[in-house]
């Protein structure tokens, strides 16, 4: 009798387990199956995404399309994205990227060209004006898939939602108090950084801050700006890495010396999040990074330095010319998406004049549309330091800021190796010449493969 009961119980348990397995399997299948009224977005934590998320419920109510989002911080975001795209998953329909990723993913065939959607009147509202985007930013999103050339040529792979160029944020109060002039050359940056690294009213101040982690994103802002100002390049026309040129070694040495003698301890551990926090909390006299961080610095609720920040264009190089690196965050569509029309409609909505305008109060500056940048509401919201911010941002966008990377699929790999070389110089394990020559040799080996 007991045996019979045991047998019945085991059969019941087995049946329940089988049922659960079937249910689980169905759920998994269901998740990957097409859903006409739902799109999925993979997003990087950024003022644009954090502001657009506020308006998504409104979009869902208006269109009946459910929009699911996954928001991750930058490093984790790109890891998740590469995993999704390389497995040709159709789960995420839209995602954010910058141009190095655009070059990699477009070449791999993972991005949907957007020109046909823009030209389709059934999908794009008549008042969605493509010519309103700053042409320089649209150029950043076009590429002809040829290594080493072709920016601004070929299909449009993404739509820009946020632009940044690089300025030296500086503490006006400290510069005035210690009688230091805002630096106009990189030698002056070095001197100012050394002078201002001191204890001020009981708080340790560090003269100069910049990102420092072992990542291509460390190369990209102030350092690449300085590097380009010195006339140095990453690759020559035959895609040979030339970061170890005489000019490259000279400016790298000066830049790292500035960080070592006038920067915070532990520079190699700084991401932009930590550097920004350092400036917000009043620990840096200068911070060389994306100009749109001004929105946080000028917000008295977040910042100890609100109203005390000056905006200095990047210093000129030896030839007297100012050059800045630039970065564009864009939204792109997954070529494997099964809901491309719905995804495009959302993309068109998120990049419309109205929506970009509505994201301004939530720190999504700088806008990528001319009409939004010139709108009186934007002017009022960004008129910091008596218009100094807008003047520098305007000059950077129109005159000085360009993509300083050679277009190729190697930017992130090369940049990571290059950043490792900067850390070696900072740590004193190698001279600038040794570290850059070694990095250039490694990068050339990567490219040859």
């Amino acid at each position, binding site marked *: 009798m007991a045996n019979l009961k045991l047998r019945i119980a085991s059969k019941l348990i087995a049946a329940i387990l089988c049922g659960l397995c079937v249910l689980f399997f169905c759920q998994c299948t269901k998740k990957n199956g097409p859903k006409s009224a739902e799109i999925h977005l993979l997003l990087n934590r950024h003022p644009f995404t954090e502001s657009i998320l506020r308006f998504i419920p409104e979009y869902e109510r208006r269109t009946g399309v459910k929009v699911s989002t996954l928001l991750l911080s930058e490093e984790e975001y790109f890891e998740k994205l590469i995993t999704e795209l390389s497995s040709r998953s159709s789960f995420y329909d839209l995602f954010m990227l910058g141009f190095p990723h655009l070059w990699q993913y477009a070449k791999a065939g993972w991005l949907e060209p957007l020109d046909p959607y823009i030209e389709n009147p059934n999908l794009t509202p008549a008042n969605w004006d493509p010519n309103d985007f700053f042409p320089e930013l649209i150029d950043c999103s076009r590429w002809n898939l040829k290594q080493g050339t072709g920016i601004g040529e070929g299909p449009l792979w993404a739509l820009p939602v946020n632009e940044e160029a690089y300025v030296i944020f500086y503490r006006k109060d400290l510069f005035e108090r210690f009688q230091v002039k805002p630096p106009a050359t990189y030698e002056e940056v070095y001197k100012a950084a050394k002078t201002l690294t001191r204890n001020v009213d009981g708080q340790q101040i*560090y003269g100069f801050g910049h990102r*420092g982690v072992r990542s291509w994103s460390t190369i990209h802002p102030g350092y690449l700006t300085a590097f380009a100002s010195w006339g140095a390049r990453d690759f020559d026309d035959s895609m040979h890495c030339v970061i170890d040129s005489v000019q490259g070694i000279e400016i790298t040495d000066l830049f790292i010396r500035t960080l070592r003698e006038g920067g915070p301890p*532990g520079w190699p551990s700084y991401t932009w999040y*930590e550097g920004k926090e350092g400036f917000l909390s009043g620990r840096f006299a200068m911070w060389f990074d994306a100009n749109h961080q001004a929105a946080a610095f000028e917000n008295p609720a977040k910042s100890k330095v609100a109203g005390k920040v000056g905006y200095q264009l990047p210093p000129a190089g030896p030839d007297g010319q100012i050059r800045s690196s630039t970065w564009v965050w864009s939204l792109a569509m997954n070529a494997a998406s099964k809901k491309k029309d719905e995804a495009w409609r959302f993309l068109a909505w998120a990049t419309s004049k109205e929506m970009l305008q509505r994201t301004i109060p939530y720190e999504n500056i700088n806008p990528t549309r001319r009409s939004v940048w010139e709108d009186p509401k934007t002017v009022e919201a960004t008129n910091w330091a008596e218009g100094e911010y807008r003047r520098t941002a305007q000059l950077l966008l129109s005159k000085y800021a360009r993509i300083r990377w050679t277009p190729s699929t190697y930017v992130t790999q090369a940049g990571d190796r290059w950043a490792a070389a900067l850390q070696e110089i900072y740590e004193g394990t190698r001279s600038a010449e040794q570290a850059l020559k070694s990095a250039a040799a490694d990068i050339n080996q990567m490219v040859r493969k």
Partner: protein
Amino acid sequence: MTDHALRTKRPKPLQRSLPYLLTFPALIALIGILYPFILGVYYTFTNYTLTEPGNIQWIGLTNYIEIFKNIDFWNAFSLTFVFAGSAVMIELALGLGVALLLKDAFPGVRILRSFLIIPMMIPPIVSALMWKVILLPTDQGVLNHILSVVGIQPVAWLGDSATALISLILIDVWIYSPFAVLIFLAGLQSMPKEPFEAAQVDGASSWFMFRKLTLPMLKPGIVLVTLFRLIDSLKVFDIIYATTKGGPAGSTMTLHIQSYFEAIRWFRMGRGMVYLFVLWFLCFIFSKVLSRLWTRVLVR
């Protein structure tokens, strides 16, 4: 026995296949485990790049030869051993010390034992991020802030190649020492009292009893902790990823982190898998040696 009798005794087809049916789920599980492993090993012989999934070519031992010739590999190899060896030794010593302190009953010992396992209950990545904040390089960091009170200048714990690896080892020790304490505590509490009482009657010193009785009787626990912690420390990823990502200047670049850079950040899946295969091989060797040692200790 007649033919008829033999035929009737022969098991029915269902009974005959029962052993195979019973082992079938284990076989499925084995395939599930082995397939990714074999695929990973296969990739080590190819030029597989994540951005070119349609262009996987067999390149033989090229990846192995290139990586073994590269100084970065040997740097990562030695750092992996330094990290794992140091962390395990400190955890063993600390675990044993704390277990000896907590083995006897005294007021509050239960609460202390409960508090002790808190680090193990926090996901390692969260612990690592928490420590990253504590070890921030300026006086924003909790530790530097405390040190500044007594006039010590801020130290770049995770941002200086001289201190980064030590800081990571200490984070690992903070997280995993409680595991060693728990195992040793269980071992100490299950020891027979008679040998100790006899030694006491004979006038043996505490140090003598510790060397000649406690340590030999704790051997299975010591081998067990070494086995688990060594394998875990060799393949540590989360703590380093969340804090230094292998920097500064490669001073915390272990094999696992290097494989992450190769496979995920630089898309070179073939090369990344070589690092992982070497790591697996090391773990395999150590686990074999230690598990044999454990069996021998148990038999004794």
